[in-house]
């Protein structure tokens, strides 16, 4: 009996070692934010007496790894139920009235980062596109195929920005360059990175990438993230 137990124990131990080796083997070097280590000289770590997290404090957990967007042919497309579909260039977005705010991102994995964000109001972009009366949903898409959805009213009831700077530094590719949504009061999976398309829709049943895999559709911080 004792011998059998020892054998089972050794087998399970070997299983753990095998799992660790497999995990190390599959570990993606992309997930180490090496290229942003050099940014510390310009990154601010305090804003109006409030301590800020480092840009490097994020953990890489995107669906296809960091995306490197070529800004020379980049367009932010706003389309769907709109009277004036628009294709913004990167500079055209930056030319709009900008706003700064300190917001904390809370990831469902248990970590959080407090960052000074700078960007433009999503509401301003939507107003330019002139949403039709039937539009009630905003679906945001990223270059890697990620998507998430919000009620249109969310952007009119709150000052939600799409950010192009964090801690006074242009958002690096690993963090979502050129634009990342600063979705206040929402879990991290609603903070879509590498945004390239915004669709105005009336499909209230649309589920984004993680929402269709079991996370809550609303993603409110004061509620469980399990759908």
């Amino acid at each position: 009996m004792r011998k059998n137990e020892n054998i089972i124990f050794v087998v399970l131990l070997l299983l753990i070692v095998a799992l660790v080796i497999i995990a190390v083997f599959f570990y993606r070097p992309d997930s180490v934010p090496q290229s942003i280590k050099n940014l510390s000289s310009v990154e601010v770590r305090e804003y109006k007496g409030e301590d800020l997290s480092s840009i490097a404090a994020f953990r890489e957990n995107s669906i296809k790894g960091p995306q490197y967007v070529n800004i020379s042919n980049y367009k932010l497309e706003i389309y769907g139920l709109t009277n004036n579909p628009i294709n913004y260039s990167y500079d055209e977005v930056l030319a709009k009235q900008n706003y700064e705010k300190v917001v904390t991102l809370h990831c469902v994995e248990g970590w959080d980062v407090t960052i000074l964000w700078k960007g433009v109001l999503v509401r301003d972009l939507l107003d330019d596109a002139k949403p039709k009366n039937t539009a009630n949903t905003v679906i945001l898409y990223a270059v890697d195929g990620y998507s998430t959805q919000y009620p249109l009213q969310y952007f009119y009831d709150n000052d939600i920005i799409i950010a192009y700077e964090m801690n006074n530094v242009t958002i690096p590719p690993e963090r979502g360059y050129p634009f990342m949504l600063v979705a206040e009061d929402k879990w991290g999976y609603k903070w879509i990175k590498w945004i390239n398309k915004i669709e105005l829709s009336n499909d209230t049943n649309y589920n984004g990438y993680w929402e269709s895999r079991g996370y809550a559709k609303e993603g409110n911080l004061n509620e469980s993230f399990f759908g």
Partner: protein
Amino acid sequence: MKVSLDKLKVIARWILFALVIAYIITGFGITQYQVVEKITLGLLTKVLSQKIHFYLLIPFLIFLIIHIYLSVTIRRNNSI
């Protein structure tokens, strides 16, 4: 009485061991979900890992306490 305590300790130990293994695997399933989903052929998704990880906490603590209690009790009985 001593025999049954010993048996109970063995059972608790193995359940605790299984819980620890499940805890580690589901932990990987959350942070390294791309890898774990691939290895498990999509069975252990990030959301499922997170749910299992979340619900394992209480059983894990209960069996940890039982394991410690039995270890201390049996050692004390043996030394008398």
